């Protein structure tokens, strides 16, 4: 089983994503329009002991992967944990070109045409083939770097979950294992349901990344249901949105999440060395306190 670091570094802050303020998102996007600015923040995180970068498959991240691959000694032990697909890219393409043309543009060969014609024999096999082609295309930029876990983004993972097409989640896990030697991870806004679904397709201790915060923001079913699932169901849980987009003060938010022993890892984003240092420091302190007998 792949070891996942306790602290993971996220990338929302680099791409103008802020769930609470468009203004903050805009300011961040201006600051990080250059790849160098992102690399400089990653370097600060590396200096503070962070070795795992949980990222989207945004084009800009491809450049970062190239840079890290070109400087192996500087980034010894550095890992990418990519999450795919970068949904907005596809959503925009579907809006402009329609679903079928988008899929055609993204997959080489005549698979989609054959599917539309109904020429292929089994639809399930076609869908799996289509999925693997999309995954491979997204992974191309990461071929030179270490990717121990490959995630399915929540927009797709939760849609498949809602549709109860759980086999597709299993097929994703099998493909990233056989093709990239990686474990599959699943972002979700519906953790208890997702864990049950993953168990049902034979993933015994699924890696799930979900919101886990003191105010229950975007934790579908509520904090109690999440805590119960965490206690009773085998999983490897990564907590995200711990600060609920800034609605909870950092120390209070991190103390609350560190008190939950079932949470294996915490992902956070920060743009300054001071914020990186204080977040890492707080998590280490709270972990230390929990592990030290009173």
């Amino acid at each position, binding site marked *: 089983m792949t070891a996942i670091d306790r602290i993971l570094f996220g990338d929302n802050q680099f*791409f*103008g*994503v*802020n*769930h*609470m*303020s*468009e203004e903050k998102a805009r300011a961040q996007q201006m600051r990080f329009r250059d790849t160098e600015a992102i690399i400089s923040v990653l370097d600060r995180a590396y200096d503070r002991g962070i070795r795992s970068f949980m990222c989207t498959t945004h084009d800009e991240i491809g450049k970062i992967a190239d840079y890290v691959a070109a400087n192996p000694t500087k980034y010894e032990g550095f890992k990418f944990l990519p999450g795919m697909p970068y949904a*907005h890219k596809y*959503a*925009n393409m*579907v*809006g*402009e*070109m*329609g*679903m079928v*043309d988008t899929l055609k543009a993204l997959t080489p060969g005549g698979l989609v045409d054959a*599917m*539309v*014609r*109904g020429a292929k024999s*089994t*639809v*399930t096999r076609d*869908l799996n083939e289509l999925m693997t082609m999309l995954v491979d295309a997204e992974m191309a930029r990461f071929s030179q770097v270490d990717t121990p876990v490959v995630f399915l983004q929540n*927009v797709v993972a*939760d*849609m*498949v*979950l*809602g*549709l*109860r*097409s759980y*086999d*597709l989640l299993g097929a994703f896990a099998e493909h990233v294992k056989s093709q990239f030697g990686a474990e599959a991870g699943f972002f979700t*806004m*519906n953790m208890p*349901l997702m864990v049950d679904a993953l168990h049902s397709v034979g993933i015994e201790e699924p890696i799930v990344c979900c919101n886990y915060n003191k*105010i*229950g*923001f*975007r*934790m*579908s*079913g*509520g904090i109690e249901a999440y805590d119960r699932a965490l206690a009773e169901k085998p999983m490897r849980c990564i907590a995200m949105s711990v600060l*609920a*987009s800034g*609605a909870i003060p950092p120390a209070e938010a991190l103390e609350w999440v560190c008190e939950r022993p079932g949470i294996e890892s915490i992902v956070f984003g920060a743009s300054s060395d001071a914020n990186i240092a204080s977040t890492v420091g707080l998590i280490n302190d709270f972990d230390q306190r929990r592990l030290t007998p009173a």
Partner: protein
Amino acid sequence: MYRIGLVGVGKMGVSHLAIAQAHPKLDCVAVCDSQAFVLAGIRSQLGLETYRSFETMIAEANLDGVIISTPTSSHVTLAKQALVAGLAVFVEKPLTLSAADSQELAAIAAEHNLANQVGYHNRFIGTFRETQRLVEAGAIGEVHHIDGRAFGQVITQPQGGGRTWRAKKAEGGGCLHDYACHVIDLMNFVAGTPSEITGARLGQVHSTAVEDTVYALFNYPNGAVGTLETNWSDEAYRKMTTSVTVYGTHGKIFADRQECRLFLKPGHSFEKFDSGWNIRYITELQEPVSFYLRGEEYSAQLDHFAEALAGNPSPEAGTFATAADADWVVEQIAAVHASGPAPVATGAPATVEPPTKDQLVAAAKHYGAQAVGSAKALANAVGTKLKGLRS
């Protein structure tokens, strides 16, 4: 458990299907689409009954309600068939391409007492709900201006949307029926329906067959003014970004997907809010949902559809009747634009023939000439001004 049939497996159709299947009271048992390979996928992956014909589906699938997420031009026929068959109906926005059709659907739904709802999901976003509540409760006094906006990047190149229904006016493509109707329904939700559309311009950035921008000016029965600005060719926005600002005699409210900011003028307070800025975030204002996909509002609206099926509709959710009001505003905007002056190509020299007096009178009427007295006098003034500019 209510048995639901869904027609139209596009971007919104798949989303509705996933949310309905995760819902404790909804069970989507049948799916209808025109594409055989889509139906084959639905059958093999999801194990649902599939139909090429909507009529056959509603005749055979023993349904309680339908979700209609097809291109807009087909909504009126499909919704009418479903209502006549006694089914509850949820339709993607906009309801239809004609206010008269929408009003007829609203009348049929009311006559048969059937649940009816349109996918205006902004009504289910906590920040917008709070704005509506504050305005209705009089927090900012008498409203004198409401401003609604939406920006995003749907069409970003000349052939954008070329082969999809979004690029075809007759099927309901264009920024007016796609982006603007969302904002119009939101403005109606917060401030009521305007009585008159006094100015409107539809513009093109990349498209040739449909509009990419919509600008309009409204009058409200109480004398308040509305301004609408939407642009779906704005790459500065990562995704559709909608906001509304309401100005009143005691203060103002700005709301978007993330925040609800209330400003109260000196000497005014409301509930727990003091004068000055009071900012609250979505993290505090959004009701949680049992299943989340793309945003709480998408689950919340189907939650409401289930409640409406059970006979407990909520007035905030909107109905075919409120959607018909939005369609009326859309129709008026198109009419005012069509009767206005022809657009002048960007950067082109002014070689057009001078407008006739009749055209100027018509144009002047649209720009509020009645309010200042004689339309003719204003037309003459505009004509003189234009002559001056040309010489």
